């Protein structure tokens, strides 16, 4: 059931016809559970036709293409990839991550202590993923070029193994993963190197064709505040989340779950997207320098009609 067409410059419709439905990504089932636990799910004024468990950027783009997904939650890279692949999708909400979410872990018995020492070393690199961009940004910040280091192409799920096997000197690990790694290998002289580089964006995005459907665009607009409130709810109820999500559905121990939630970011839903757009532009330029994409204007990735919605839905403390 598609609604009337909506130009990308037209204001968002205010009415939401009954029967409108969206398919919303729920990575590892988290999104859906979050809204259920917080009760926010009852406030959704449209039908959620499904909650597909789709997280990885390429999978999301595929699902968008297949019309199997209307709204997804990703980091900053996938929208750039989608644009580069010629697929038109727009960012409709964003949450800034101030704390770095990645660390550089060394292999056991390594003498590397700073990013500057990366020169000439073997670095695990997954170019289509956030980890890859974090690495590139860190090298850039330390004044190193790609050619100064050995980039070992791997998918991020092989990073841990590659470190354990001593096949790479350095791999960027998500902080939760890095903790697990250190728990096991710190005794063998494995350590981590902090980086100031953040993976700034946690965003909600949708295919342009969804946003060109007046009814669906209205539904998306209605979902953004709920999404924002959900983030806040999780942040404010860590113990419920640990128990109900990590322990019950993810099969991990409470202790491990607590470690993970302790590292989680405070949600930050800025009323203005300028900083995010600038950051995204930097990323694009960085990737373009490495020859991984062609440069373009980051502005085109954002649908600024939605800019104010998320911030308006949360208490002031979560806006800056």
């Amino acid at each position, binding site marked *: 059931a598609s609604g009337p067409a909506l130009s990308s410059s037209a204001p968002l419709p205010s009415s939401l016809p009954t029967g409108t439905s969206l398919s919303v990504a729920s990575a*590892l089932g988290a999104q859906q559970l979050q809204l259920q636990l917080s009760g926010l799910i009852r406030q959704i004024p449209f039908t959620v036709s499904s909650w597909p468990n789709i997280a990885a950027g390429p999978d999301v783009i595929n699902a968008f293409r297949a019309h199997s997904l209307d709204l997804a939650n990703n980091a900053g890279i996938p929208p750039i990839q989608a644009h580069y692949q010629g697929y038109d999708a727009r960012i409709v909400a964003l949450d800034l991550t101030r704390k770095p979410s990645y660390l550089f872990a060394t292999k056991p018995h390594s003498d590397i202590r700073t990013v500057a020492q990366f020169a000439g070393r073997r670095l695990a690199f997954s170019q289509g993923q956030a980890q890859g961009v974090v690495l590139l940004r860190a090298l850039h910040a330390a004044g190193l070029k790609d050619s100064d280091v050995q980039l070992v192409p791997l998918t991020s799920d092989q990073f841990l193994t590659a470190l354990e096997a001593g096949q790479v000197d350095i791999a960027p690990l998500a902080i939760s993963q890095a903790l697990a790694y250190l728990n096991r290998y710190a005794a063998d002289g494995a350590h981590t190197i902090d980086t100031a580089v953040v993976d700034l964006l946690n965003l909600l995005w949708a295919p342009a064709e969804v946003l060109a459907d007046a009814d669906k665009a209205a539904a998306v607009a209605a979902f953004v505040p709920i999404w924002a409130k959900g983030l806040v709810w999780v942040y404010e109820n860590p113990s419920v989340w640990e128990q109900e999500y990590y322990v019950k559905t993810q099969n991990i121990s409470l202790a491990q779950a607590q470690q993970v939630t302790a590292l989680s970011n405070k949600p930050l839903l800025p009323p203005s997207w300028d900083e995010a757009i600038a950051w995204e532009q930097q990323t694009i330029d960085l990737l373009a320098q490495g020859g991984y994409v062609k440069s373009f204007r980051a502005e085109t990735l954002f649908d600024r009609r939605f800019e104010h919605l998320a911030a308006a839905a949360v208490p002031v403390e979560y806006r800056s």
Partner: protein
Amino acid sequence: MPAPAPATTPVSVARGGPTGRPRTRRLAPGPRRPYARLLGPLLLLAVWAGASGAGLLDPRVLPAPWTVLHTGAHLWTGGTLRTDLATSLWRAAQGFAIGLAAGVVLALAAGLSRTGEALIDGTVQVNRAVPTLGLIPLFILWLGIGETFKVVIIAIVVYIPVYLNLHAALAGIDARYVELAEVLRLSRWQFVRQVVIPGALPGFFVGLRLAVTGSWLSLVVLEQINATNGLGYLMFQAQNYGQTDVIVLGLLIYGVFGFASDSAVRLLERRVLAWRRSLSS
């Protein structure tokens, strides 16, 4: 008439007694020992347990069997293992059924008529040469990301060995039996049922065995895409959280399942091929 006796060296062979042995050297492997096939896997398990117990294995790399079993028990009672297994089995079973049917029908069509062969056989060869993983995006485009797409991919993984083995097996059916069927004026359907299928069964069973594990294995990849349960999902998750014991548990379940399903197919095979007098029987 009694000729000069050649230098014979008679070998006394007593039969039936405890010392009785035939004098002709046996080239066939001898009588089947039931459950002997368990020996290899049990040995492996013993080595693993021994090495773990002796502290030779880094538990971060390969946890001890008891750790894995403990994790298994824990996930079974308190975790999601039960639903994961049920979901995976159900997916595998659906894909398997469809793939099996498709493989059999295509193999019969291609094996019994040259037109069928011209249309089907080359296409199947191309299809099986194309990486199914590479086709996932295409299938998602056509079928969405729901269950259908998973079942279809499993069916593809299953139909290929079934087709290939069955097609080859029925191409190899002795021409003498085909002649017999012609002379007896069997209808095409009788021919298929009473000559082609039983004659091709030995080869078909190999395809079946490859297919059973194939259906199960493809879940590892498929259940990383829009699944919230299933064994593949469980292992994928564990990889995210670095839970080596869960990963090894998953591999163990695969191993046990594979061995069990293989044994089941073989049991069936032995019953259905009871007529066979071959090297192994």
